[in-house]
């Protein structure tokens, strides 16, 4: 009987050390200003997330899918993208557009249930937030395939979770991507939970990167709390994609230290002790300590980055709250370019 065999990269790639036994690494091509730009991205996402939880408590936005602790996955991978590359986010990456210059009020409007949460994907090369699990993976594969057919160099990246790998849509999308040599990165945020369902109840695979083998594509594992490791792995996957070699599956290993969403009460299912430990090791602080060890980060920069992010959020929520209530007529707008005469009958 076949012993189960696993992909090469079973080790979890890391760049950032622990300041003790494990030494810090470096990433080629990232100079000081790039490292700090990446830091500001992290702080912006962290600030967006923490403020959103507050806004929700204050009743200023609706249910909200918290991404605290996932910032390194989002910022690190996005930082590796070319401007022309398309992002296909799930609800977990709702604010990833901010890294492409999307105003916070747009994303806040989405969570406020306001149509101003709509955006033109072409403006930011960010597809609409995918609410259904995994069904956007084929979209990313199709986009990348279509770009390749047009002779463009644009790639795509799809974000999805560990639970999403159980869906047929993930499987079909990944297989199409491989068969069509679509220049796409399948970035799996493995936070080890699907709401209350642990990874152990989701799959028997030893790692999610193992899923790549069945599609004939490389599978890589990185520490999802290590923004530089995520950057590096994504950059390599993109280089491979642009070279015409097709898709790569990247498993970014992390741990969900927050409720699934504001409506979720994890006390019934998670282990507070484990969460405590994981929180100590959260990704923004890790990167801060790394930059300080490098001597690149100063208190001033920290203050300035946090202040700037906070200001953007203050303006964002103000702008979102200043929006007039939507025109009721928008109910009938946009479903069809050329609507059936009966569309208003109800």
């Amino acid at each position, binding site marked *: 009987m076949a012993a189960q065999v696993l992909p090469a990269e079973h080790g979890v790639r890391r760049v950032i050390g622990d300041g003790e036994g494990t030494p810090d690494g470096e990433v080629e091509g990232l100079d000081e200003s790039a490292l700090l730009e990446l830091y500001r991205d992290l702080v912006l996402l962290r600030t967006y997330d923490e403020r959103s939880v507050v806004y929700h408590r204050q009743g200023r936005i609706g249910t909200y899918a918290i991404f605290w602790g996932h910032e390194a996955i989002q910022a690190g991978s996005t930082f590796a993208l070319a401007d022309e590359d398309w992002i296909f986010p799930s609800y977990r990456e709702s604010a990833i557009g901010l890294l492409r210059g999307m105003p916070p009020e747009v994303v806040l409007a989405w969570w406020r249930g306001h149509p101003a949460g709509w955006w033109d994907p072409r403006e930011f090369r960010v597809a609409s937030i995918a609410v259904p699990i995994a069904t956007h993976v084929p979209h990313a594969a199709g986009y990348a395939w279509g770009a390749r057919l047009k002779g463009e160099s644009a790639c795509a990246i799809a974000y999805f979770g560990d639970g999403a790998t159980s869906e047929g849509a993930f499987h079909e999308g990944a297989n199409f991507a491989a068969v069509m040599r679509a220049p796409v990165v399948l970035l799996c945020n493995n936070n080890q939970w699907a709401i209350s369902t642990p990874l152990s109840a989701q799959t028997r695979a030893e790692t999610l990167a193992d899923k790549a083998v069945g599609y004939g594509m490389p599978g890589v594992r990185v520490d999802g709390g290590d923004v530089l490791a995520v950057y590096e792995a994504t950059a390599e996957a993109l280089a491979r994609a642009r070279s015409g070699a097709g898709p790569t599956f990247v498993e970014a290993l992390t741990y969900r230290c927050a409720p699934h969403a504001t409506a979720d009460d994890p006390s019934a299912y998670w282990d507070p002790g484990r969460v405590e430990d994981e929180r100590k090791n959260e990704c923004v602080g890790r990167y801060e300590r790394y930059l300080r060890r490098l001597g690149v980060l100063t208190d001033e920069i920290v203050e300035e980055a946090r202040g700037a992010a906070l200001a953007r959020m203050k303006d964002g929520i103000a702008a979102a709250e200043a929006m007039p209530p939507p025109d009721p007529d*928008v109910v009938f707008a946009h479903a069809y370019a050329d609507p059936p005469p009966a569309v208003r009958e109800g």
Partner: protein
Amino acid sequence: MAEKTLVEAVNDALHTEMERDGWIMVMGEDVGRSGGVFRATAGLRDRFGPDRCVDTPLAEAGILGTAVGLAMAGWRPVCEMQYESFSYPCLDQLITHVGRYRWRTGGAMEFPITVRMPTGGGVRAPELHEDSPEAYYVHTPGVKVAIPSTPADAKGLLAAAIRDPDPVVVLEPKVLYRSPRGEVPAGEHVVPLGKARVAREGTDVTLLAYGAMVRTCLAAAEALEASAEVVDVRTLKPLDEETILASVAKTGRVVVVQEAPRVAGFGAELAAVIAEKAILDLQGPVLRVTGYDVPFPYWTIEHEYVPTPERVAEAARRVLAY
């Protein structure tokens, strides 16, 4: 009788039925450890163990597909779809197998599978959390469909669905999950499939609805100067044509109300049945008040989409004017 919310009544039905029949299995996403995102399955895993209340992998077609196999092995699966819109991936299994497998065996094997899910809008949730997909299910041969509008019916119809020898889809109006409360009989309580309920007696116009729209119609009836009868269809298939046609025969006027998009929705079937079998009773057109042929809107304007008592009353007045 205890006062319960609709979701508590669902939970009560699951406990009572699983207690009664050891072959009943509850399966779905997050139904076990957390007791379900709406708490409909709370307590089942502790009471009946992880083999009879199963947290499945995140794959709706896999849930329903394995339920078919479980039924072949002698189990009575009760599958939860976490939200109605996330039941769409299992439509293929439902149409190609769940509704056809008994037929395919020449009636030799039964597939007593229950699929339950929350349905409908009014809860101010993000996209794809407020759909009303009943028409997809009702149109599928071999599948029965029920939609309760009260806690007591939620318990009784679910119990009937679980006991039924055929596959039954039970849609639970999520806007009614936590209020209002209602009297729910303790212990075993079965509301037979195929029986509509006259929710309010009246003589001038019939308001025909199901699920959350029953409440809307009751409010409209209150607002109307005329005497409106409200019929709660309760089971979309098998349909209780008798009760519906009796009401139309009495009033001669009818407004069909459905939250789902209008085109080819179940309200059209109700209107067609009336146009075919009650034409001589009709004193006016069969009007429909429905959602529109567009996606359910962002929740800040969902009230512009979901039929309101005002829209229902206005339609009733139009048909009363005939």
